[in-house]
């Protein structure tokens, strides 16, 4: 029998990026806010201390900062005719557990989506015709525009202290920035990071082949920075242990380094750790949430009443909770009915290994230290003759040279182990880099999430089931991108290159990206979306859903910048619209 607790105004499920943003914004509005996190509390000292954090085995290989599949995982299959089996250990993606979420172990690669990304359907139909879109591709417009979100992108960037070079300020193209980006009101709060040798070579090569490279925007501070909340950050020292590790000197943007000092001391904010939320509870009408049920570390069940429930867990975990709680009609791919779980997407990536003659010192790096070109992203290029939709950026990232997992491949013909392999490692480690492509994935009828019929989590709840594969569209696009990457790689005048196309089925191993999206998509039409343009559930108006769960499909950029912007956008809607008049903000 669950113990019923005293009500709060707002309960946040999870305590990562979106929960931290919402907690700050809503406590500033005077609300009592409680965040419930399944993992433990973590902070820079002692958990991310410089003294021990650069331990590749413990953190990157054994996942010291990641979730444990033993407690919760998902089942996976490529297609409906297969039986989904559990993801028994992490591979393709690394969700977090613990306060700060993946916000502490990301690289800090921070992007805005393109204006056309938000209106992909209308735009693609207009430019290429309705027939250009494959029948089973279920892309849709977001219900918000880039212009709607611009001030909130700005807010997130200034929260984080993003180091970058603007490309388009109020319509004026800035030299040295990304000429394709949507217009921004002002530049980044900090100048770009220092350049590594490899990014300098890439920059030259890209220019030589007629492209316009620019430094990637980084949530790694190039200088000490005090953000608008008054929180002080340090300066990145290029230690090369960014993604999968946490930052020891306050220079990677995370909830801890940008929000916590301004949030945690507040009287009207509290949090609980080591508590798993297992249900959003609804009243008898099913149209109103009464709060959540959670289980604490001792296995005791509690009911936490709240006026407003906001799902701030990682992407697919939000969808899992919606399905378990019966919010939104579950999606059935066979009938194409229902919304919850629909339109899951991911990212399609590939790489070209580049073997040079000079010392690259790959171990000096930062998570978002990179140089990129955007000519082949979104609809920045003519897709007509190419026969696919989507694109991605091509970048040379120098994030580090960690010896176990960041071996930049070996030249063609190198043996996979033995004396020949050893020799290759000796000759190539210091002199190899990779050019990476980072491509979009569209949504499809058969890419979706639902509840598994067989496998259960530690509470006896059905695991989430993921059905997903790369489609022809993505393979075509990725090959195109990879060939472009090879072009630039060759222009770096290397000893040799090795092209690694992304071919075949999507696999749950090895690691690709932690850019899982969809399942609770946002949109203008409740028949094809779970939440409206303010991230409010169509069905239960006092439930909001954050994160990349709401992406209708996944553009060719890392998601966090947009996740942060949408959190601020939703917070604004709650503060200025919802609180004045609780109820649906958009008429269905």
């Amino acid at each position, binding site marked *: 029998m669950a113990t019923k607790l005293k009500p709060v105004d707002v309960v946040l499920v999870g305590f990562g990026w979106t929960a931290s943003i919402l907690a700050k914004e809503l406590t500033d509005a005077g609300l009592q806010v409680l965040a419930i996190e399944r993992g433990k509390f973590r*902070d*820079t*000292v*002692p958990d991310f*201390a*410089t*003294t*021990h954090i650069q331990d590749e085995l413990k953190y990157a290989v054994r996942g010291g900062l990641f979730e444990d599949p033993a407690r919760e995982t998902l089942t996976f299959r490529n297609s409906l005719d297969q039986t989904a089996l559990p993801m028994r250990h992490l591979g393709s993606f690394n969700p977090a557990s613990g306060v700060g979420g993946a916000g502490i172990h990301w690289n800090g690669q921070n992007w805005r989506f393109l204006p056309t990304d938000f209106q992909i359907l209308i735009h693609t139909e207009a430019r290429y015709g309705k027939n250009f879109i494959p029948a089973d591709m279920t892309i849709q417009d977001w219900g918000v525009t880039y212009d709607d979100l611009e001030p909130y992108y700005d807010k997130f960037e200034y929260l984080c202290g993003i180091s970058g070079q603007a490309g388009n300020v109020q319509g004026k193209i800035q030299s040295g920035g990304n000429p394709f980006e949507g217009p921004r009101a002002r530049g980044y709060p900090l100048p770009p990071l220092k350049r590594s040798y490899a990014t300098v070579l890439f920059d030259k090569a890209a220019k030589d082949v007629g492209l316009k490279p620019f430094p990637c925007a980084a949530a790694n501070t190039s200088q*000490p920075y*005090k953000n608008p*909340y*008054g*929180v*002080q*950050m*340090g*300066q990145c*020292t290029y*230690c090369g242990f960014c993604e999968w590790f946490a930052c*020891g*000197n*306050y220079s990677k943007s995370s909830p801890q380094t940008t929000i916590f*000092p*301004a949030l*945690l*001391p507040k*009287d009207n904010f509290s949090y609980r750790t080591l508590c798993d939320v297992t249900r959003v509870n609804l009243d008898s009408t099913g149209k109103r949430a009464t709060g959540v049920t959670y289980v604490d570390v001792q296995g005791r069940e509690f009911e936490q009443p709240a006026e407003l429930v906001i799902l701030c867990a990682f992407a697919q975990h939000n969808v899992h909770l919606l399905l378990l709680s019966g919010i939104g009609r579950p999606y059935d791919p066979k009938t194409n009915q229902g919304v919850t779980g629909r339109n899951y997407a991911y990212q399609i990536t590939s790489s070209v290994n580049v073997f040079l003659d000079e010392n690259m010192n790959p171990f000096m790096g930062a998570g978002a230290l990179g140089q990129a070109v955007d000519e082949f992203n979104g609809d920045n290029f003519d897709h007509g003759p190419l026969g696919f939709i989507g694109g991605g950026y091509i970048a040379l990232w120098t994030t580090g040279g960690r010896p176990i997992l960041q071996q930049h491949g070996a030249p063609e013909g190198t043996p996979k182990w033995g004396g020949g392999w050893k020799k290759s490692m000796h000759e190539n480690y210091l002199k190899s880099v990779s050019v990476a492509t980072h491509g979009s994935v569209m949504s499809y009828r058969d890419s979706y999430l639902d509840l598994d019929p067989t496998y259960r989590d530690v509470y006896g709840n059905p695991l989430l089931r993921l059905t997903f594969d790369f489609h022809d569209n993505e393979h075509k696009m990725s090959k195109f991108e990879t060939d472009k990457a090879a072009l630039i790689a060759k222009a770096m005048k290397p000893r040799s290159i090795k092209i690694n196309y992304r071919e075949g089925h999507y696999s749950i191993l090895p690691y690709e990206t932690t850019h899982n999206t969809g399942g609770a998509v946002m949109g203008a039409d409740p028949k094809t979306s779970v939440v409206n343009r303010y991230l409010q559930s169509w069905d239960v108006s006092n439930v909001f859903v954050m994160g990349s769960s709401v992406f209708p499909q996944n553009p060719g950029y890392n998601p966090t910048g947009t996740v942060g912007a949408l959190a601020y956008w939703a917070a604004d809607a709650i503060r200025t619209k919802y609180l004045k008049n609780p109820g649906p903000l958009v008429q269905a």
Partner: protein
Amino acid sequence: MRTTRFAFGLVGLLGLSLANAIPAGAQGTTYTTIERGRYLVNAGDCASCHTDQGGKPYAGGLAVPTPFGVIYSTNITPDPATGIGKWSEQDFYKAMHNGIDRDGKHLYPAFPYPWFTKVSRDDVGAIKAFLDTLTPVRQANKPTELHWPLNMREVMAGWNELYFHEGALKADPTKSEQWNRGAYLVEGLGHCGACHTATNELGAPKAGETLKGGDFGEHWYAPSLTSGLRDGLGGWSAAEIVEYLKTGANAKSAAAGPMAEVIKNSTQYLNDADLNAVAAYLKDFPVGKAKVTTTIDINKQALSRGEALYVDNCTGCHMENGEGLAQAFPPLKGSSAVQAKTPDTVIHVVLAGAKMAATPGKLTGLAMPAFDWKLDDKEVADLVNYIRNAWGNHASLTSVDTVSKVRRDVEHGGG
């Protein structure tokens, strides 16, 4: 982390308004007296001793270690049975001014009456008026655990005879009003000298050593506040002193350990006029005879070992040139805290880490991790000697034995 939250909770509980200006021209009204008292209680940092960790505000019970045993702070809430609820303003004044409690018993100078004696009667009255408004807490005072013969309070009569100079501070007519206000705060309620002055075997301030630095205990050395360039405030501007006391850090240093608590509980609440007064007073403090340290004869190999350790362990924040990072990590180069008379603080911080005060001006409470598990005693000694003598720094050497002792004494936190 917990201290920060606790301190905030304390503030929240009392509903303190943080930047109290003493209202001008509204003297004598009950409200303004109480508000003035609240301000003065912050200035005197009463909470740091009279509120136990996790305890009720001002209810006492904090164990204060001394070389003579443990003293527990007393309940100064207005509870009539266990606090000072029955104390009149006269009773309270006798305690603050003479170190004698309501029953005529001597108080131990762990309660800094040798400094509070300088506080005016008026201010003491205001303090009492504020204390009278606190929530009464029923919590009996714990008896002291002092060694004989100090467990007999009468002994303090003799100590007072030798070392206690009773009397309110008289203004110096040759100095400005601001200077005198600064003197009043530093020598009185602020009781800075209680830590920042060397003491003799009986725990009394050594004559002629006022504010030239003192051993706080537990391997925290309170540096000189006089105008020494190397190990005092000679290189600090008045504005830097103000910034330090108000926010916990400045371009030259960051408060750690006990001083971070002082910032959090006390000096951050002083208004700008008072902070400027304190700075003016300290900047005017005479240097005194320069301490001639014998030429540091550092073994080159040891120095080079220390340098290697510094490069391997410290440059992520303190940078290769020892200059730290502006607004974030304090410099080691040229630091008066680093070059203090004893190396204890540096050893302590290397072993146990440190956390900056979180104040409205500097919210973040940046922290340094503990190195105790990572470096052995010899490495710590080499590293500390390097830090204290690199980049133009110049300070006494430490030994492996000293490091071992500090390591034994210092608990590195309960997690």
